[in-house]
């Protein structure tokens, strides 16, 4: 809708002029200013209407309250405050700020209870999960047991007013880093400090604690020569990447180049590679520290973190810089500490203490030659990987010909500059040039998304000018330009910076594009469209494919032009989840389509492999790009890649040279608890194990739950005892949908697909393993509800021309059909999720007729088209309560403009009359409304998961899925780069039988 430059200004000033006039004079004004430009006039008329519009998402008077505010309130409660001198924090009196660390501020404080000064470290866990908090607490408790004169004590971990703090020993005096600014230490002093540091480490290692971030800034030179090591283990909670040890990166990432991979020069090679670290990492850092004390400058002085990375992995250590009077024992110790392969390194820091206690002692160790040989061999692959990272010479190496040296796979965590968050809502934020030399990353800084270019040579990230508001980047065939969508247009800009060129006007909801070698661009212009092609030399966008709605196709998206430019890979979204989407190829010459993968989305081709995503896992399958054929079975190659199940997009990009860039996700997040919620919003878990539950359903007596457990690809129906939480399985490899209890509680009816046909069948819950088939259909069918007398099963069927329809089949006493199914509701809109009232006289169901917004309706079962009652503010998933009440779920903003109605569960109470229903009142039960209990944040009532809500027969409580993480997924600051990834894939493939 935005218009360019002058156009905007012109429209805006005309709008202003028009608004100045009384409404009665505006038509004349418009006629005068644009007499024959009807397009302009239409736009102005619309803007005037919108300027005067009533209450919607933009309220007339400004300000926010209600649900949005309540969200905010929660966020604020979870966050962490800034504090200042004079403030009181629990029993501590703050006396000033000591410093800022990676995890939060450190304050000087006074503890009146023990009458001593302490250091209080606020841990900012912005958006971090409670799991991290618990881990941190556990770790802090462990650290508090470290009692050693050279370790700055951790007095405790306290949660004060909801925020976590570490209470630490306050150590006065300069840090070793401050001291080193004045140059090297005399050898004896260096040895004395080193001895105390080694002794601190030895004690920590004995307790199983690894420091992980030993550096001069963490060593305090206290009074009387007493050395204290600070920040044990805290700098890096378990399981996070090496980037945690980054130096502070430049704060303003948008105006200057910021190093993405900030690397402390004290990181061990294995830390840089993202490998697990152990006590030997501290040994390396100790070597660096000792070296620096003796020489007066860091082991690997370098201007940029990129250089440090390269140096740590590769550079020869300058032994000649050591002062001449360095004792032989110390030289030997340094050499043993600074071996790049941890297996060759000094294994026990205690040995360092021994060595330093008597540094002049002569002693023969292992023959030097042998040790060196081991070291060289171990180093070689690393040398290559480091060069690849630092200088992008993977291609020259390959050209140098046979036999190619064995290149190891390397993983790097990229730290985005401070303040940047990866922008991967709906669409992949990554692109990689074919040669892997440059990465393009879409990230948001203070609310503005921009593209950032990261050159693998310099490891620096720079914003690409003119890409504000960009989305879905893809690269030109020569890798010099990046194309992106912004402002309802397709644009491109040189990677090196330069003018932004607009290629075409596109709608505001494109779904991917790719640039062919002949200069044309294949794209998916909107979220429910086929593919289209744009030839920049000609005007306009030409359609390439049509959606086949009779086959349930909802969209063609995420295109990639295959090498040779004759075929395009794309994802076909179906009426179900994107986990069930198809990867297809389209011939640009003949229009032929070939299905390559059933059940997956976001296909990408590189180096003889087709990659795609299913349920957050990255799969690969050998692919022949000439004959356009899959050769083999897909295998999981990466667990946990960020994936948007609504759009089918996944956050990854692969180069032809095997550079993989991706956003890591936790694949465990789909495990949930079964739980009750009462009307006060209180949660009570059923059992204590989280599983991949979905579609939970209560038995008629309310004592058992039927649910599906598993993934889309492999799931089964189970019954869970609501009291004992014991599980029993009803099916085996069936992948059933929508369990519906039979009224006698002896069976659960499900829908399932087999060999392209759908079936409704009843599984026995009495342990007899019997299956009773009910019907078969070429269409997708889901059971909805049994009539209380067990005579009728209402189900929904997906029809190619009429969408979801509600149908019914009559069933005899043996549970088998007693007649042909009949249609109850079929319009070109969707009717679905029907539920019998407890007396069997009424059906509640959802329909989006006539305006595409779903509402819940109630009608007599005998004539369900005759609606007796319906919601008006948008509603889903009706359930009848034990007393005949009706409950329904209302998503937020179910209808545009209706923001005043709460998201959540509502109850309808009826005034019963013989032939019709009339409403006594509708009451919100829980959700986001004012003064309502709101358990939403802990539930998996994601708007899509309708059937996870049910009503117990034993009282007003609700069966729900409780999120097992309990917290939101963290914003991603650290994408991962894998270099030479194909090497790892080849190894994996060769291991396969």
């Amino acid at each position, binding site marked *: 809708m935005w218009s360019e430059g002058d156009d905007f200004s012109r429209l805006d000033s005309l709008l202003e002029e028009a608004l100045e006039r009384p409404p009665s004079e505006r038509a004349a004004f418009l006629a005068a200013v644009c007499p024959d430009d009807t397009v302009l006039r239409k736009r102005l008329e619309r803007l005037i209407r919108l300027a005067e519009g009533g209450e919607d998402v933009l309220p007339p008077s400004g300000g926010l309250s209600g649900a949005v*505010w309540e969200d905010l309130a929660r966020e604020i409660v979870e966050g962490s405050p800034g504090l200042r001198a004079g403030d009181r924090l629990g029993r501590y009196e703050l006396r000033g700020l000591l410093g800022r660390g990676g995890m939060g501020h450190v304050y000087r404080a006074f503890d009146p209870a023990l009458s001593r000064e302490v250091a209080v470290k606020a841990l900012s866990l912005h958006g971090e999960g409670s799991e991290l908090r618990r881990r941190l607490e556990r770790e802090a408790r462990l650290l508090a047991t470290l009692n050693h004169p050279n370790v700055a004590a951790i007095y405790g971990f306290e949660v004060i007013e909801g925020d976590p703090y570490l209470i630490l020993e306050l150590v006065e005096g300069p840090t070793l880093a401050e001291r080193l600014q004045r140059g090297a230490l005399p050898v004896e002093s260096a040895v004395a400090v080193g001895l105390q540091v080694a002794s601190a480490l030895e004690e920590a290692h004995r307790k199983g604690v690894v420091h992980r971030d030993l550096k001069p800034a963490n060593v305090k030179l206290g009074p009387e020569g007493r050395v204290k090591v600070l920040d044990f283990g805290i700098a890096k909670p378990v399981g996070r990447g090496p980037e945690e040890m980054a130096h502070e990166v430049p704060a303003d990432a948008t105006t200057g180049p910021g190093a993405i991979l900030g690397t402390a020069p004290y990181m061990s090679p294995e830390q840089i590679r993202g490998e697990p670290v152990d006590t030997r990492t501290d040994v390396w850092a100790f070597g660096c520290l000792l070296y620096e004390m003796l020489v007066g400058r860091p082991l690997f002085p370098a201007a940029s973190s990129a250089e440090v990375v390269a140096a740590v992995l590769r550079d020869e250590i300058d032994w000649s810089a050591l002062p001449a009077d360095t004792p032989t024992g110390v030289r030997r110790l340094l050499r043993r500490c600074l071996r790049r392969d941890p297996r060759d390194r000094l294994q026990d820091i205690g040995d360092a203490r021994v060595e330093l206690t008597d540094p002049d002692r002569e002693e023969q160790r292992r023959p030097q030659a042998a040790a060196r040989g081991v070291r060289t061999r171990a180093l070689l692959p690393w040398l290559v990987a480091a060069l690849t990272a630092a200088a992008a010479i993977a291609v020259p190496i390959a050209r140098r010909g046979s036999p190619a040296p064995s290149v190891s796979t390397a993983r790097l965590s990229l730290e985005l500059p401070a303040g940047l968050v990866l922008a991967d809502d709906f669409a992949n934020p990554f692109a990689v040039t074919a040669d892997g030399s440059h990465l393009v990353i879409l990230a948001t800084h203070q609310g503005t998304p921009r593209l950032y270019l990261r050159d693998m040579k310099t490891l620096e990230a720079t914003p690409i000018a003119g890409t504000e508001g960009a989305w879905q980047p893809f690269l030109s065939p020569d890798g010099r330009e990046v194309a992106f969508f912004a402002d309802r247009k397709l644009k491109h800009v040189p990677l090196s910076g330069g003018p932004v060129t607009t290629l075409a006007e596109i709608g505001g909801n494109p779904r991917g594009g790719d640039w062919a070698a002949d200069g044309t661009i294949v794209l998916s212009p909107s979220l429910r469209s086929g593919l289209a092609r744009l030839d920049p030399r000609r005007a306009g966008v030409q359609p390439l494919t049509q959606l086949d709605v009779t086959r349930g196709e909802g969209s063609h998206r995420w295109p990639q032009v295959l090498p040779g430019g004759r075929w395009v890979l794309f994802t076909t979204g179906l009426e179900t989840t994107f986990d069930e989407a198809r990867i297809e190829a389209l011939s640009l010459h003949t229009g032929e389509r070939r299905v390559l993968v059933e059940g997956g989305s976001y296909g990408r081709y590189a180096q003889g492999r087709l990659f795609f995503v299913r349920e957050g896992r990255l799969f690969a399958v050998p692919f022949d790009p000439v004959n356009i054929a899959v050769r083999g079975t897909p295998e999981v190659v990466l667990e946990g890649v960020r994936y948007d199940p609504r759009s089918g997009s996944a956050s990854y990009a692969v180069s032809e040279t095997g550079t993989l860039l991706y956003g890591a996700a936790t694949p465990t997040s789909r495990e949930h608890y079964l739980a009750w919620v009462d009307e006060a919003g209180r949660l009570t878990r059923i059992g204590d194990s989280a599983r991949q539950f979905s579609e939970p359903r209560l038995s008629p007596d309310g004592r058992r739950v039927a649910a599906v457990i598993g993934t889309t690809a492999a799931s089964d129906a189970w019954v869970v005892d609501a009291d004992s939480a014991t599980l029993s399985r009803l099916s085996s490899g069936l992948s059933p949908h929508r369990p519906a209890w039979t009224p006698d509680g002896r069976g659960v009816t499900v829908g399932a697909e087999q060999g392209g046909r759908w079936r409704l069948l009843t599984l026995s819950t009495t342990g007899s393993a019997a299956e009773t088939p009910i019907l078969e259909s070429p269409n997708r069918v889901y059971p909805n509800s049994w009539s209380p007398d067990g005579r009728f099963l209402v189900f929904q069927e997906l029809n190619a021309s009429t969408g979801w329809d509600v149908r019914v089949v009559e069933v005899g006493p043996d549970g088998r059909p007693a007649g042909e199914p009949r249609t109850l509701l079929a319009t070109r809109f969707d009717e679905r999720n029907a539920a019998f009232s407890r007396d069997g006289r009424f059906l509640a169901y959802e329909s989006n007729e006539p305006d595409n917004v779903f509402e819940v309706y109630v009608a007599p079962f005998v004539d369900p088209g005759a609606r007796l009652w319906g919601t008006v503010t948008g509603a889903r998933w009706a359930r009848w309560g034990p007393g005949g009440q009706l409950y329904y779920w209302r998503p937020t*903003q179910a209808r545009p403009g209706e923001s005043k109605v709460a998201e959540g569960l509502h109850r309808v109470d009826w005034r019963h009359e013989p032939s019709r229903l009339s409403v006594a009142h509708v009451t919100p039960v829980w959700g986001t409304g004012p003064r309502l209990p709101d358990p939403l944040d802990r539930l998996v009532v994601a708007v899509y998961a309708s059937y996870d809500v049910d009503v117990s027969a034993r009282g007003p409580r609700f069966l729900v899925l409780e999120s097992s993480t309990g917290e939101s997924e963290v*914003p991603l600051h650290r994408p991962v780069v894998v270099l030479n990834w194909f090497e790892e894939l080849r190894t994996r493939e060769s291991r396969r039988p």
Partner: protein
Amino acid sequence: MDDPGEITRLLHAHEAGDRSAFDRLVPLVYDELRRLARRHLRRVPGGHTLNTTGLVHEAYLKLARSPGLRLNDRGHLMAVTACAMRQVLVSRARARLRAKRGAGERTLELDETRLKHEPNAERLLDLDRALDGLRQRDERLARIFECRYFGGLGEEEAAEALGLSVRTVQRGWMRARAWLRAELEGPEDDRVE
């Protein structure tokens, strides 16, 4: 907000034409907003009694006590506070969106076509994106909108905050809403559905 003088310094830098000073101010105020809100929420369980407008005003009153602040700076500070409020809200909306997205994959139906009818969080992010677009075309309109919508400032307050006449703010508010609504709805012939 470790150094209250920093706010004054940045405000003066902004006034002297350093446009980046505004953006550097926002994080300082952001912290203050959160701090204040926390205090309120501790006092008033449930927190429903305080709305964004109240919070912005209170944060402003507190920050306006920064030493060395001139009368002129106070208006700017109000605008900064509104901008910080926007960021607090948008960041929360993102977190909420991610939380929802993590859940319910299997039972998901269809596409994001339904987004339009779904949570406030998403609407807020759309609005944030649209507002960035407006800001690139007319910074003043965007600031007026930001002050009034996110800061909950009245017409007079917004006028003072931005150094504009009340009339300009009134007209700007209407136009900004028209543009943003148009952007959020998309072209009439190209509705998201």
